[in-house]
Every structure is written in C-alpha cells, then in structure tokens.
C-alpha cells in the first residue's frame, strides 16, 4: 500500500502498522522520499538515517509485543525544540553549529511513545513571526499556493502536514503560532492550556506565553499526539502538576444528553462580537459562520458574548512578549556556543558584532522593544501596565465562560497573504494576530479547525477556545465537526 501511505493520518497509520498492513520502515521510507523532495522549504533537516533507525526500532518493539497508537508513526519537529540527533537552529544564524546534548521533553516523550522523527521543520527565527518570512533559512511556502505564506511561526510544521510530507508535526504557540499556520494551511492544531506541555528543551521566546502542541490533519490525531507530549515535568517549574491525561478518551467521551445525531447537545459556544468586526474579510466570516452552523446542527447553541479588551491584546502582547524575549535571548552572546564575530575590538564589541551579525531584523526589533519597555522609567508605564491589562483580559474570558463552554471565532482576519506582501511594515502583521493573542495572554487552550476554502481557494480556520484544561471539550467538539463535515479532508493540489 506504499502509494497511499502519505495520505494516512496518525491514527490511520498507527492502525495500519499495528494490523501489519504496513510497517514503520515502509511508512518512513515513503514519507522520507516526500520530505526529501520538499519544495516548500518546510524541512530544514531531513534525518534519513536517524528516521530509518528509529523506524526499525519501532517495528522491533511491535514485534516484541508492544502496542501503542503512535508506535512507528513518523512525525517531524519544529526546529525550536532541541534535539540530540540533529542540529537545532530556532530558525536563526546565531545557533550556527549548535548541537544540543539532550532532547526537549516533548521530543523525548514522543520518542518514548515510538514516533519516528523525520527531521526538523523551518520556523520564524525564535518563533517571532506570523508568516514564516523571518527564518534565517528562507521563507516557507504555502502548499495551497506557493506564492503565499503558510503562516507562522510554526509555518514549516503546518506546510509539511498540509502537503502530506508528514502526518503530524510539533509546533509552539506564543501568540498564535500553532493556530494561525494551521488555519492558513487547512490543518488541525491545538495549543493546550499553558503548563500542560513542558517547556524544557523548547527554545524560549516569551516564557509566560510559550506552549507546545501538535499540528495534524484531524482532531483525533491531535488528541493522540497531545496525550503523548504532555504531562508534568519536574524540569519546568511552570509545568502543571497533573497526572498524564488521555486526551483521546476525553475526545471520545459522550456529553450528557447527547445523541448520535446531536453529539454536541448542550454545548454553548460563545461568539465574542469583537471577533466578528465589520472589517473581517467576507470569505473568512462566511466560512467561520458556516462551520458554526454545522456545529449548531450537531446540537450546539450559539451565544453572543463580549471580550471588550480584544484590541488591547495587541499592544499588551507586543510589550510582554518582546520584554521576555529581550531577556531570554541574552544568552546568545557568542561566549559559549553559537555564532561569534570573527573580528572584534573588545568584549562589548564582541557582543555587539556577534549579535548584530547573526540575529535577523524582526528579532532585533523585538529585543529593542523589549529592552525599552523594561528600562528604568518606562517599566511602570509599559510592562507593568501591560501585565495589569493581561490580567483583565483573562478576567474577561472568565466572565464569558459563565455564559458558554467554548468560544469561537476566526483564526485570522484574512486568508494567507502573498509572500512579501506586508513589505517593511511589521505593525501590519502584528494587527493580523488580533484573534489569537487574547487566548494566549490568558493562557487558555485553543484550536484551529479547518472551515473550508475562502478567497483564492485558500483555507480558512475556525478558532475554538476553551477554559483552562478544557482540551477534552475542545477536541470533542472539533472531532464531531470533523465526523460530520469534510473541511478537514480538503487537500492542496499535489
């Protein structure tokens, strides 16, 4: 069944391997061939030898009687996760030649579950960006239209999954970096509650916001991956002390009062009026409302709610995230690892030149913004004020969740734009983050679920947000939408 192997999702492939229809080695070979032929610049490294060795090991584990839905299933990792077997760049020149002596917890856990890593995926430098145009290793192209961006910062992950180079990939979401590229490429992605996945080994951008999650083709595949990736990790002090969760079981659990025809019976979905502004692109608004209408048919009720500080989330995020980033990125100083300028006059000059040479413009911009807002005399007016509003935004969500179980809206105001279209105006890109930022600032779980095609035949994503630790509710709703519709099965032309 080699020809069709790349079309299988995580659950399907796992079952095919378990039933002996194929093997991990066979599936890995098929996908390696596609990954090596990648024309999207999604893969930074294809680790052929490592993948084949892991596939063989997985098949041996199967043969020895081990089971598991992910055993032998190929995946690939966003290059923001450090890995022992391959270089890690975070999309930056500053990590030139760096090799991590350990795997990120998320990587190690997926490895333990038997997944086979095909390699590392391109992303915006240090996950800063929403178009994957900020990678030091070139932009990633959208498989639906190679002249368009795939979204960011997990653009390589989204493009690779959408183009069927790999059934699933890891990503990270700081202000929308899983949800938005998933939306732009028509795949399913989930950012869990802050603290559900360990940040150990995830190269930090903004520590209080960064969270790992999977991108795959279905909610079910996301549930399987998230179960393996997540869980308490004593090496991350912000990791939530909860026993391991079976998100797949949570996804399958029937709601009380539900029936086969109305599986979402009793589910109240809140629609914040701020998520549906007059300026919202008609195709996006139309597709999102159509998907919500499908959910209504499945028993959900739609409720009008309000998140009054939605617009404020942009300045708040673009103060807090750069502030943390400016400090997190101080370790890249050319002293112990990574790029060091070839010539310098003294210590200060070494720092200046090494960092100036190796960081890209968006990273430099955010370091400067972050340094400024933390400076003496500005801290109160910017950083502290932003933290206060962040708290209020979280409170606004809690007020909403008094009236609804999930919140829905678009992922982004438009479909994916053309590469280079935003030119030199970073603020334009920042404004496009408006719908994903509030959930990030509140630390809430969120999903991007395909909702059909909009302008230019480009995918539109439906965003679902849940209350803290409501991943099960999110996955359940998305799963039933996907059982009832085929938005998630749409694929770009090969």
């Amino acid at each position, binding site marked *: 069944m080699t020809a069709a192997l790349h079309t299988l999702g995580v659950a399907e492939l796992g079952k095919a391997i378990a039933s002996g229809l194929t093997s991990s080695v066979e599936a890995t070979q098929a996908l390696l061939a596609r990954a090596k032929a990648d024309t999207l610049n999604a893969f930074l490294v294809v680790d052929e030898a490592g993948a084949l060795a892991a596939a063989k090991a997985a098949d041996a584990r199967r043969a020895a009687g081990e089971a598991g839905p992910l055993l032998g299933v190929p995946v690939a990792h966003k290059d923001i996760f450090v890995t022992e077997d391959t270089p890690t760049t975070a999309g930056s020149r500053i990590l030139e030649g760096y090799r991590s002596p350990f795997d990120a917890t998320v990587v190690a856990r997926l490895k333990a579950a038997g997944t086979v890593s095909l390699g590392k995926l391109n992303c915006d430098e240090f996950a800063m960006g929403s178009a994957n145009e900020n990678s030091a290793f070139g932009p990633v192209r959208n498989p639906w239209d190679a002249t368009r961006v795939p979204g960011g910062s997990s653009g390589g992950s989204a493009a690779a999954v959408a183009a069927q180079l790999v059934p699933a990939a890891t990503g990270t979401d700081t202000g929308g970096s899983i949800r938005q590229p998933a939306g732009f490429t028509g795949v399913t992605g989930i950012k869990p509650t802050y603290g559900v996945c360990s940040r150990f080994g995830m190269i930090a951008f903004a520590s209080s916001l960064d969270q790992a999650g999977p991108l795959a083709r279905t909610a079910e595949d996301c549930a399987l991956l998230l179960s393996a990736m997540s869980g308490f990790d004593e*090496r991350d002090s912000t990791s939530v002390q909860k026993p391991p969760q079976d998100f797949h079981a949570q996804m399958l659990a029937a709601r009380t009062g539900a029936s086969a025809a109305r599986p979402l019976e009793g589910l109240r979905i809140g629609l914040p009026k701020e998520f549906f502004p007059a300026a919202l692109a008609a195709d996006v608004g139309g597709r999102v409302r159509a998907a919500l209408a499908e959910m209504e048919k499945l028993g959900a009720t739609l409720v009008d709610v309000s998140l009054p500080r939605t617009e404020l989330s942009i300045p708040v995020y673009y103060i807090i995230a750069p502030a943390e980033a400016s400090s997190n*990125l101080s370790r890249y100083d050319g002293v*112990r690892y990574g790029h060091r300028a070839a010539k310098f006059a003294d210590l200060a000059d070494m720092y200046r030149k090494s960092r100036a040479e190796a960081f890209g413009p968006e990273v430099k911009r955010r370091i400067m913004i972050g340094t400024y807002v933390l*400076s003496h005399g500005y801290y109160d007016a910017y950083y502290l004020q932003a933290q206060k509003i962040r708290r209020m935004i979280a409170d606004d969500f809690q007020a909403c969740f008094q009236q609804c179980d999930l919140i829905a809206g678009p992922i982004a105001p438009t479909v994916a734009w053309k590469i280079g279209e935003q030119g030199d105006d970073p603020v334009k890109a920042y404004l496009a983050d408006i719908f994903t930022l509030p959930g990030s600032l509140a630390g809430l779980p969120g999903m991007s679920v395909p909702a059909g095609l909009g302008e230019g035949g480009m995918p539109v994503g439906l965003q679902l947000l849940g209350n803290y630790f409501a991943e099960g509710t999110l996955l359940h709703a998305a799963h039933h939408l996907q059982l009832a519709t085929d938005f998630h099965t749409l694929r770009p032309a090969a």
Partner: protein
Amino acid sequence: MIKLVRGYEVVIGFETHTQLSTESKIFSGASTAFGAAPNTQASAVDLALPGTLPVLNRGAVERAIRLGLAVNATIAPLSIFARKNYFYPDLPKGYQISQYEIPVVQGGTVPYTFEGEQRTVRLTRAHLEEDAGKSIHGAQIGQSGIDLNRAGTPLLEIVTEPDLRSSTEAVEYAKALHALVVWLGICDGNMQEGSFRCDANVSVRKPGQPFGTRREIKNLNSFRFLQQAIDYEIDWQISEIEDGREIVQATVLFDPDTGETRMMRTKEDAQDYRYFPDPDLPPLVVSREWVEEVKARMPELPRAMAARFVAQDGLPEYDAAMMTQSLATARFYEAARDAGAPAKLVANWVMGEIARRLNAEGKELSASPVDAPLLAAMLRRIADGTIPNAAGRKLFEALWSRPAGTPADVDALIEQLGLKPMEDAGALEAIIDEVLKANQKSVDEFRAGKDKAFQALVGQAMKASKGKANPAQVNEMLRKKLGNV
C-alpha cells in the same frame, strides 16, 4: 554615646553574601563543592544551554527560612524571583536570578556584643539569589578564562539598615552574623573560599545632619580587611569633605596590599538592570506549615542556650555569652561539662588559657590539642583536689605541647610531672621553716602589720615546694608559725 572621628559621625550598613550550604545549586542539580577543576560542576542549566529552565532548590529556601526565624524576621508567604539583566561572560544567561521587590526574609534583628554591651542591628531583608561564575584573567595573553563552577551557587544576601557607627562595631556585627549563619548550619562560613562576603556601605556626617552620601566597599572577605577598609574609607571621606569636595555615590574595591579603597564605578555609570519577575519561576510560596516544619528542626539559638547555661549551670551571664559566641565553643563547653568538669571551671579555661593559646597560634577551637574530654579530665583532677590550680597550668602546658596526635593520660602525666600536692606535713613544715629563715625581712614586715609580706611568704613557700604544696595548707601552717615565732 557615639564616638566621633575627626568630628564626624560614621554610618555603616552591610550587605552580606552568604553562600548557602546546599549540596546542589539553587536552580540546577550540579554540585556546589569548592575547588573542582574549572567547568566540571556546570550543568546544561548553569551553562544556559538553549531550552534549559531553572528549578528552585527547596534546601536553599529552607536555609533562608532558618535565618529568618533566628532573627525574628517576617517570612514572606509569597516572594518573587526577578531577573537582573546584564551582559558579562561569567553570567551565562545574560541575567542573574535574584529576589528584587519581594524578598523571602523581611525585617528582623541580629544581636551582637560591643564593648561588653548587648546590641542589635536591624535587618532590612534577606533575599535568595544565584552566584555568577568566575572570570580568570591573564592565564593566557589577550584572553580570559571562564569557570562556571560557581555559577548558580545559592546565596542569601543579608541587608542591614545603616545602624552601625564605627568600624569596630561593624566588625562585631559581621562576626556575630558569621557565627549565627554557621550556628544555623546554613553556611560553612569559609571566608577564604568566599562563602561569606561583605559589602560595607559607608558614609560620614556631622552630628545631627542627614545621612551623607555613601560609598559601597565590595567583597570584603576577612574581618581584618573589613576593619582596614572601613577605617581607610572613613578617613578618605572626611578628608574629601574637609577639602571642600563632595562625596560621589560609588562602588569601591579594597586593595589589601596598599590598604586603600579605589573606585570601581560611580552611580552615573550604574547599569539599568531591567529587573522584571522571572516568568520561568512561579512565585515562591512558603506555607505556615513549612515554616513550622523548619522551626521544629532549628538548633537551639545562641541566646536561648546562654540563658540555659545561666539557669542550668549557674554560669555568670558574661561567661554564658562567651560560651555561646560560636556553635563550636558551645559544643566544646557542653562536652567538657558533660564529661564531669565543673561548668565555671570549663568557662574559665576556655575563655582563658585555651583562647590565649589558640589566638597565639592562630588556630580554631576545633584544632585545639586539648579537646573537650581532655580538658574535662584535667579539670576533674583540679576539682577533686588531686592537683592544685597552679599545677593545672603545668599539666595543661604538657598536654598542649605533646606531639600532635599522641594520646594523653592525665593521671599518668600528673605522676610523671610530680604534680600532686605535698601530703607529707613534715616535709612542708621543713620547707616553711627554711622560707621563714631565709626571709627574715618579710617576717619583720608582716609583724609590722604589712599583709603583703604574708603573701610574699606564701609565694616563696609555694615556689620552694615547686608548686606541689596545697596553698591552703601553706597558709594555715604559715599563720600558725608566724603566730608562734
């Protein structure tokens, strides 16, 4: 009464970096042991490799709580770790994790003795932080080495109010704090290895005037340097003012070779550290139960122990205070007392002969050739009248100067040295008769009413007996003879 220096009042406050005695670092599992080969005790976290995160060592927090309880401070139920951002090669993350706005220990007082008087210094705070690594300059021309073994070592920075008024008082406070942290078992107190480093904030003012501008002397790692540095600084500041110059707020370093302080940086070139709460570390929550747990395992504090020595052993208050100057002293005292030596006698010898000899030889009590059991064995023989007090000194001398490591048998030594008092009354009588004959002048003076002459005769008799005579017996026999003659 405040002593003025050249008409100025001196104002001193302290910031002391106390290295906590945890086995591993404050945010990583690497060892804190001193003296390992460079960079062998630096983990991925200490090297700030990409993706690493800090995890707080609860042992460090417990040690901070212990200090807080000992000085009657408030233990903050919630405190915050912040990042202090600056670039330096021995600071791998580009920031130091330290408590800034809300420290774990707030307020409290440290008691100390100054000129025989019990005093206290108010603490502002004590906060947890990580140490930086070390830069090693000059090992290779044009290059600097970095050793990150020390990076991430837990420190408790103990900050006082500007309560001290002289360099000697400052030294007494520093000694008391040093003794306390060692007593509490939270710091090994090794000043040469940098486990206890003092920064002194010094300013001067005319009495009644507001505080003068202060200069901070960094990293003083001996009590002697502390005193020298402060004295130099006071003198320098007064001269500047007298010469019509203003003191500029600055950080200075003390050079032990020249005995001078020299400027490191002024407030103008002070960096903006861009402090903000570390998002990698949730607020430190110290529950009531945790504090109680630590309290239950606290050693008896010096002041409580001193009170017990007064009540239980009948020591005078001064002696009790001296016996609780350090945990080592208290342990020594208690061990000797428990081995059957009279308490007051132990205190006398510890404060007297032992202190003198240790001082002269620059030794710590732990290295005393006469340890507590040996001292007790010796004092028991004085107490039971086997040997007179005067013979005790000879015995002590013999015990002290015996070849290091050789066992000592007190009773055998007494025999060997012939220290037992003369029990033979006939022999003593003969000695006394000799003395009276040879010192007719003293006898006459005594008869003329000079009591001093009697003491001289006692002394002569003791001398003639080579110290073996029982002084009381000599006294009695002399009086009898002088009355008769």
